[in-house]
């Protein structure tokens, strides 16, 4: 009797633990609604949604990377570089010296070019990690500096402002990614689309299985015939593309590209991923969890600003929340292992 009651209790605790990020999100929303009357207004929620979209998209790419057991520190810098590439192409075009002409691209073409650049940077990360056996932390740390450096070099540190394009050059409409459609920010819609694609890839395709397998047991994956290097390169490529997209959205939201934008956003992305239940040791993680994690980060950031909490206290609080989340994560894992052991003993 006592035993079954105990089991029921741990089952309830388990459910609570699994839904913990969602519960935390709920508590935060209620707290900020009471703490500041401006929190639950359309304009505030739209602002939060705009920010969440950025952390969320970065977080999705990061989730793939972390599931394979890696890390990508270069995404924040790719956001900056992506914005500078897009902004530069709109305001200055591409000057081909040998022909003495300057080509201006349409906005869709610029988006595609920027995404390709992000993909190439990601592939480079993946190649360094797989072919030269460099630890992901180091490889992407290096890339972080390189990409940020190139972002600065593009304009000598200056901002490309007023990215509205010119009718005559056929490159207007870049502001679209920062606007709202039917009251919903375009960035949030893009987040939703990417999230659905990423979740399907992870759950329903061989590619997703292989990502999980590499994180679970890389040696076994290799022996099973999984093309480990190829999958890893694709994962870093995907992260690079996500970062480039965020670069475009950021520049569009501000109608300006600043080379320092996206600084330390990789940390927000990692935080969202970890809050969402992805294990830093790899093998475990979901896209849905990361999205919820991104909301938690977004709500904390903007809620504290609305409450008038100083920027410095914001950092302290964010740091505590992240560490606390991982502590609970470990607690859940231990409990899970205990329960599995228990049911195994009962069955046998």
């Amino acid at each position, binding site marked *: 009797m006592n035993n079954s009651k105990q089991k029921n209790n741990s089952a309830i605790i388990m459910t609570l633990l699994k839904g913990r990020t969602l519960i935390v999100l709920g508590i935060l929303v209620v707290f900020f609604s009471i703490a500041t009357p401006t929190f639950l207004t359309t304009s505030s929620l739209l602002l939060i949604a705009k920010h969440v979209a950025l952390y969320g998209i970065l977080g999705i790419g990061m989730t793939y990377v972390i599931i394979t057991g890696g890390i990508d520190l270069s995404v924040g810098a790719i956001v900056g570089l992506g914005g500078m590439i897009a902004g530069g192409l709109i305001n200055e075009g591409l000057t081909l010296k040998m022909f003495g002409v300057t080509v201006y691209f349409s906005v869709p073409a610029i988006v595609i070019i920027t995404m390709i650049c992000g993909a190439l940077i990601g592939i480079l990360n993946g190649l360094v990690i797989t072919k030269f056996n460099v630890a992901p932390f180091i490889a992407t740390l290096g890339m972080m500096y390189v990409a940020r450096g190139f972002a600065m070099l593009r304009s000598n540190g200056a901002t490309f402002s007023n990215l509205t394009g010119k009718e005559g050059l056929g490159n207007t409409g870049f502001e679209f990614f920062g606007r709202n459609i039917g009251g919903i920010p375009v960035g949030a819609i893009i987040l939703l689309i990417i999230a659905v694609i990423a979740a399907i890839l992870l759950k*329903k*395709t*061989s590619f997703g*299985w292989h990502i999980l*397998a590499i994180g679970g*047991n890389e*040696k076994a994956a290799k022996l099973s*015939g*999984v093309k480990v290097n190829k999958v890893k390169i694709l994962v870093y490529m995907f992260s690079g593309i996500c970062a480039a997209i965020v670069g475009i959205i950021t520049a569009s939201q501000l109608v300006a590209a600043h080379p320092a934008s996206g600084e330390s956003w990789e940390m927000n992305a990692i935080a969202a991923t970890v809050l969402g239940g992805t294990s830093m040791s790899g093998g475990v993680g979901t896209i849905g969890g990361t999205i919820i994690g991104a909301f938690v980060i977004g709500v904390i950031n903007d809620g504290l600003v609305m409450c008038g909490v100083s920027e410095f206290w914001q950092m302290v609080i964010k740091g505590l929340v992240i560490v606390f989340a991982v502590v609970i994560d470990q607690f859940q894992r231990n409990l899970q292992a205990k329960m599995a052991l228990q049911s195994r003993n009962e069955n046998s």
Partner: protein
Amino acid sequence: MTDKEKENKEVCLHAECIDKIYPGTKALDNVSFDVLKGKVNVLIGENGAGKSTLMKIIAGIEQPSSGTISMDGKEVFLRDTTEARKHGIGIIHQELSLFPNLNVYQNIFMAREKTKGKVTLDNKTHIDLTNKILEKLEFPLDTGTLIGDLRVGQQQMIEIARNLIQDDLKILIMDEPTSSLSQQEVEVLFKLMRELTASGISIVYISHRLEEIMKIGDHVTILRDGRYVAEADVKDIDVPWIVQKMVGEGKSYPRRERNIDWDKCETVLQVNNLSLPKSGGGFLLDNVSFELKKGEILGIYGLMGAGRTEIFECIMGLRPEHTGTIMLEGETLSVKSISEQIDKGFAIVPEDRQQEGIVQTMNIAKNISLSSLKNYGKRLFLDSKKENQAIDEEIKDIHIKVANKNLPILSLSGGNQQKVVIGKGILTNPRILLLDEPSRGIDIGAKTEVFDIINQYAERGLSIIVISSELKEIIAIADRIMVLSNGIKTGELTGDEIKEEHLVLASYKGHHGH
């Protein structure tokens, strides 16, 4: 061989003159091996005989340094496991190669997924086929269970099931598949193996359970020290024949005679009912008891994974989860940490010299004095005069051949490096010295010198425990030998009982059933 016998022996895969050279060692030396079609081909050999290496080469995991592999008369190149699988070769690994974070059917179909329209995974087919295979194995299980939540034995069954999923399986390599199965599961596996061979599939089988081999095997090949020794049909041989071929008649070291009545000597170390649980069920050490007299050399012999090193780890305080009592000179110890154990008079020379024995970045002198630095302390600082004096004495005492003690440790040969590690242990003035494979990876000359040092200190009254996988060595050096098998103490031999055959037989005893 008569013509009729030849007809029965259709060769499915032929490995010709395979060499495999790792830096420093030759794992396989000119080995040729035939896999007979529809038979259970058994590979036998001691630790390091090259069985697993040969199997890895056939499964495409490792590539031979030289030699060829042919199937049905045509040469094949098995560059990786995918290539090997295309030729119908599957392997069940000794160490499990599963994904603990994924469920049963994901593990079984990893890298051979079935898809709908080449894009989305067809999990319904995965589950159906998995259930079918598990039914065949008489092993019903929820296919959605996470592998990490299964017992080791159950995981082993999944590993087996993975290989049966392949349609065009021709050769199935099983590297100790029964090591963690229950008797009942073994019976099912044997039944299945007979079904497989009846349908023309060849099985290559490695096992440490000799009786099992006599039961399931058709043809036996024996390797020793990376070389081919003998082969025969199982019906023509018996267990003693196998043991004799495994042991061989190589050169042996002179056995040292000491006429001491050990019963009269004082007992230095007494270990009672030492047990160490294994994660995932079972025991690494199961109720092991032994004692050590003053000035005695106790040998511990056993196969890989028999629990030899674990005994040292328990004594030195690296395994806090152990149970049982350890008594030093009649006093029960509460083993807490390795530095405390060193203070109490234990010293260990670890198995892996490069990783655990020496600090590669420091010089010879520093490596020698590392464990006993506190003896040379002068308040906060080291008394370098005292330290150097001790180092010089030690270098002389154990004959380390060194031009200058401030040279980097890596400038020494393996044998001299080992002497440095032993010297480091001796400088702490231990009462008990634990040596884990002290002769591994050093040449014959250095080996004899290391043995001389061990003997010399035993004569002076130091009690020593030596672990060795090399039969001839342990016989030559030990006064008494304890044999471990599968975590169980299966023998204790003294005096004239110490014979190679006895040791080998005892070292397999723990694997007989459960």
